[in-house]
């Protein structure tokens, strides 16, 4: 079973993602802020990290830096989960070493699942 960690502060969004992914057989874990997110990543060793760029303690770009500095997480696909416009999201993804991005809000569940599955290692 592939493991997905979502680092996302909005509870409703996290709940929606959880329902979608667990229904499709993914093991799911959620952290609602940056520091908990890093800790969870190190404990859970996910196959994919979905990372919101706007978090209450440190933003997603900063968390990306932490994850890149962890030997155990360096090869884990890191995906920005963001409502930012496409061009900005692309700039951030390229600049901060993400493996890609998925846009919020989720408007098409099947498309979302397909995107997640395509990034899972």
């Amino acid at each position, binding site marked *: 079973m592939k493991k997905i960690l979502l680092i996302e*502060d*909005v509870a*409703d969004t996290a709940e929606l993602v959880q329902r979608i992914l667990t229904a499709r057989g993914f093991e799911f874990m959620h952290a609602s*802020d940056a520091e908990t997110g890093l800790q969870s990543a190190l404990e859970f060793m996910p196959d994919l990290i979905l990372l919101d760029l*706007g*978090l*209450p*303690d*440190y933003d997603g*770009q*900063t968390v*990306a*830096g*932490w994850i*890149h*500095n962890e030997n155990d997480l360096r090869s884990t696909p890191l995906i920005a989960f963001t*409502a*930012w*416009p496409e061009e*900005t999201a692309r*700039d*951030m993804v390229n*600049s*901060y*070493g993400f493996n890609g991005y998925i846009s919020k809000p989720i408007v098409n569940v099947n498309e979302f699942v397909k995107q997640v599955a395509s990034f899972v290692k």
Partner: protein
Amino acid sequence: MNPTFAVDIKLIPASQFTVDELTGIYNQTRVDYMVPMPMNATRLAEYISVYNVDLEHSLVAMQGDDMRGVAMLGVREGRAWITRLGVIPTTRRTGVGEALMAGLLEQAEQLNIQFDMLEVIKNNTPAHTLFLKLGFYEIGELLVLRRSPVLPPIDPTVADAQRLERHEALTLVGRDRGAQPWTNQSESLFNAQEVSGLYLTLGDGSRGWLVYQRQKFTLTRFIYKTEVGDPVKMAYAFLSHLHHQYPRLDTQLENIQINDPHLPAFYQMGYVESFRRIEMWRGTPPQSLLAR
């Protein structure tokens, strides 16, 4: 204070709430923003302190026992700043935002302040329209920039480089930045921790300085000046020294004016644009701000 509402709203001073409560309502108002910028209580408390937010004159919109919106007022000599304005999504389009704004402007007037400043995220049309309606006018466009620590290492430009301790750095910043965007005014640096700087002299005689705040994971709050020489060359030089010195720190810069002559150097150094804001004023800056 309250104009007519579609819902029964009361405006209460923000000082009657804990920072945790204010953090909660602020985050709820931003939940559907393209750039939500959520905060935890620690960050909001720092924000309140660094930006001189006056909670006695900031407001929370209440409907019964429920918080529906918030707006904060920064207060400095001769000027006020509207910030953190937000209404929770289910209460929008009922006049709450306008009531909060009118309430804050009234609070500023009570403090005998006739000059108000704010920034609005570009393309936030409802807010922009409201501010125009209330008498604000556009001053210019501001950039929010980031630079990733993942970028390749930088070789510092050859220069005579002098590190500036906090007091030296703040002396260079001076106290005459009152007409700058609020986040980049002198007080914002004076109120911040871990402020230091660099003074560079290049081989051709160009010289300039950069003052910055170094946080645990980020460099931020840059104030800089080219005293002699080409601003782009000078900015490239001080950025190269800074990022050579702190290769693992992320960089976040707020409210860089779009016509800043140093800007090309930031892009050369790998900075990317996060988003833009529109700077708006209401009233005329007092002569004491412009003349200093």
